[in-house]
């Protein structure tokens, strides 16, 4: 595995882009070859770090507005949109000046809100999940028994996180850890479904109940909801369908539980 072509194959294998026969060949060799296994694991880890830690630059509002205005100006976007966009382009110096004036006027209040709190929270959840799965410290307490996991966490957190089965065949509770998200210590329950790890973050909230919002972020599935004074956020790299099923199951479990 020391040549460029092997490295190329490995990289394509990890991307799921290698042709079937070759991919099968690697998959077979992996079983006996622990070195190869390590290499694949390292490649995946690098890929996960890139997904989770690189900056994704979202289009600034001024740019979005410009494109939207160009479209809104014209009932028939194909012809008139062109001139509208071009017009905007020509007026850009003034638009920029106005934008800058606006930004200056509101800079005090805006500095804190350029990244929405939800985005910030999701970024933290993704980072925490990736960090934990990459390191050896996935759990502080390793047990599939909730009677062991819950007391451990509640003694350190000052609240008792609800722990439930995922309700999916082949899933198991791996344990729990104390993590730090959104400026507070939270409980992270770690489950395993096949090769995939699922982190379930739980912390007390004073806000009311909120339904499930599921999003995809950097290749991970995320879902958040609040119920009975507890905020939940689930993250994993399982496929979206399976993830939705797990979320439904968990959310309904918590709904049936009398609030303690």
């Amino acid at each position, binding site marked *: 595995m020391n040549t460029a072509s092997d490295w190329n194959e490995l990289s394509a294998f990890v991307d799921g882009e290698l042709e079937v026969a070759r991919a099968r060949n690697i998959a077979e060799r992996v079983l006996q070859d622990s070195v190869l296994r*390590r290499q694949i694991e390292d490649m995946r880890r690098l*890929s996960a770090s890139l*997904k989770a830690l690189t900056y994704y630059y*979202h289009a600034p509002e001024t740019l*979005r507005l410009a494109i939207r205005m160009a*479209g809104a100006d014209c009932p028939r976007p194909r012809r008139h949109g062109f001139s509208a966009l071009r017009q905007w*382009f020509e007026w850009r110096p003034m638009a920029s000046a106005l934008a800058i004036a606006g930004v200056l006027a509101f800079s005090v209040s805006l500095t804190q809100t350029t990244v929405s709190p939800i985005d910030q929270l999701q970024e933290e959840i993704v980072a925490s999940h990736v960090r934990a799965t990459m390191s050896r410290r996935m759990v502080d307490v390793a047990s599939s028994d909730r009677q062991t996991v819950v007391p451990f966490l509640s003694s350190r957190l000052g609240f008792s996180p609800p722990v439930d089965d995922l309700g999916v065949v082949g899933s198991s509770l791996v344990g729990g850890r104390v993590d730090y998200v959104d400026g507070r210590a939270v409980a992270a329950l770690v489950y395993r479904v096949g090769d995939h790890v699922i982190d379930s973050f739980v912390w007390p909230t004073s806000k009311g109940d909120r339904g499930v919002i599921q999003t995809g972020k950097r290749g991970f599935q995320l879902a958040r909801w609040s119920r009975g004074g507890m905020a939940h956020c689930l993250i994993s790299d399982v496929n979206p369908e399976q993830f939705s099923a797990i979320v439904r199951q968990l959310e309904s479990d918590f709904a049936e539980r009398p609030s303690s």
Partner: protein
Amino acid sequence: MEHARPSEHRPRGFEAVALLHLDAAYNLARWITHNDQDAQDVVQEAYLRALRYFDGFHGEDARPWLLQIVRHAAYSWLAKNRPKDMVSLDDCDDAWREVPGPSTSEPQAMALRKSDRASINDALAALPVGYREVLILREMEELPYRDIARIAGIPIGTVMSRLARARRLMRDALLTETKPRLRSVSLKNPHESQLP
């Protein structure tokens, strides 16, 4: 939003398609130009161009189509403003094959684990643009090799070897990062150093 596929519907006009892929367009332009304002200019110019050809666009996947135009505009910008960044990549270069491959004796897993957000972003920003763009399209946009090939205007085989090489460079950068060494310094904006 992220799963919405414009190809499944007839495009409802340029605005809808354009807005849907605006983040992807801006992110790519931003990583190529290294600058907010320049990235905005590049995207606007690209969208202007895209609008011109929009009549000829019929329901294929809009994302690679748009990103191809954005990349082209970004490269035009590079050629004009940062010609030094336009290094041509020798995709047949075999020299790096002689470098020992991933060996298990190296504590690379440790190194990668330690690498934080700043060093990963620095390392990515320091990659030659040809490697940087394929990595961005693959890891951030999660595009298949076929789409990356189309956007970057290279054969699929070259996408494969460039991605592999890019990952190798990233890994090496992150490994050396953990040893005390000189850090790479990002290229200075030539405009900044000029006197008025």
